[in-house]
């Protein structure tokens, strides 16, 4: 493999893979997308490239694998430093973006998936409340980060846009499947508008999975997870 060849091991439904794809698109980097059917089997290349977690996404740059979606996004930003910046330039703004991205992965996304996956109405209700509280925090964060412009990154999409925006497909799925409103035009008007702007962005629109395809996939996923009795 040439030292500058790029491969991305991923799967179309994964929001984490989507982050890597958007970052690569922003920098206009060409890469080979290798679809993994991780629910069925993991390829030898995946197991070799990510022996620690055996998960997608994995970016393989030349011979070297980089794992974990947010780490991949930062790597892409740093290697293609001459392209449009993904992380803000100001250290404090960078810290704020990083803080919220960590919050999304550690706290918010688990409550989002719990709306679909947890057993019993009480558990789902609690998960929903937590997810909505998180969105209220993000609505407030948007005002501070965007500084009056369309995205968390200002006039262009940046790190936190990618971190949160990658979950939009799943937000829509959960709104449909659980019959709830998450990003609500009246309650979180900034996020509502932002979601539309993000989804229509050139770096995003061709890689964002279609909602109805994701709904079908989610039915399969829920059945598999609940059927096997494991989380």
């Amino acid at each position, binding site marked *: 493999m040439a030292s500058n060849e790029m491969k991305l091991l991923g799967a179309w439904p994964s929001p984490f893979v989507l982050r890597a794809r958007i970052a690569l698109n922003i920098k206009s980097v060409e890469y080979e997308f290798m679809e993994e059917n991780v629910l069925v089997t993991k390829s030898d290349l995946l197991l070799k490239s990510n022996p*620690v977690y055996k998960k997608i996404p994995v970016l393989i740059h030349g011979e070297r694998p980089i794992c974990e979606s947010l780490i991949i996004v*930062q*790597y892409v930003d*740093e*290697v293609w430093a001459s392209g449009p910046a993904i992380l803000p330039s100001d250290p404090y703004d*960078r*810290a704020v973006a*990083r803080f919220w991205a*960590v919050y999304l992965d550690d706290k918010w996304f688990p409550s989002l998936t719990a709306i679909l996956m947890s057993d019993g109405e009480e558990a789902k209700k609690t998960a929903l409340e937590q997810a909505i509280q998180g969105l209220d*925090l993000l609505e407030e964060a948007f005002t501070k980060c965007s500084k009056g412009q369309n995205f968390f990154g200002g006039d262009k999409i940046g790190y936190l846009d990618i971190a949160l925006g990658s979950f939009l497909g799943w937000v829509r799925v959960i709104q449909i499947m659980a019959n709830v409103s998450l990003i609500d035009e009246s309650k979180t008007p900034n996020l509502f508008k932002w979601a539309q702007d993000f989804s229509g962005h050139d770096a995003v629109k061709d890689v964002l999975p279609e909602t109805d395809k994701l709904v079908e996939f989610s039915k399969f996923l829920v059945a598999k997870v609940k059927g096997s009795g494991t989380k």
Partner: protein
Amino acid sequence: MAEELNVLRTWSSPWGLRVVYALKMKGLEYETILEDLKNKSDLLLEHNPVYKKIPVLVHNGKPICESLVILEYIDDTWKQCPLLPQDPYERAMARFWAKFGDDKLLPSIRSGFYTRGKEQEEGVATAIGNLKFIEKLLKGKKFFGGDTIGYLDLAFGWMANVISIMEEIAEIKLIDAETFPLISAWINNFSTHPMIKDLWPPRDRMIEKYKAIREPYLRKEA
């Protein structure tokens, strides 16, 4: 302008130590504000409303939360004595392993600490498997950062700080000098480093603290 740096932390938290060690490495003056986590200050609640946790770095009145985010902020703001490597791939690796330490290695070590019997054996085995990844990282190096302490050394500081205490209390062996010669040497080099040892929490207090933390888990099992 004179920089005002405050660190909200506790006397023992390894996450708080990450921050003060980073500031020391950069030669920066700061004030420690010690928090009692059973009685959190208004300042902490104001500066970290999302998690209400330490550490928080307050720089000229602006709070930054989450210890690894704080390390990156410190490195972005003050360019002397870089904590992260310059090369993007090496930076990605440092970030990856720091996260592995927090997300996988520490929980596996805790699972050996908070349990007994078969569950403890399994926890210890998992932890040792995870430690083998870390041992490989130190090949040919004194510190994870190379010749000097860097981001990953600070991220792994909790290993030097806490593992031997857990081993003593729970009567388990995780870092055996024969199986893990490099980690063993690193623990010694790190904990005796002049920048590090002055802020090292006293061992007897740590033992008391961790015994108390372990108590309720053992009572649950009985």
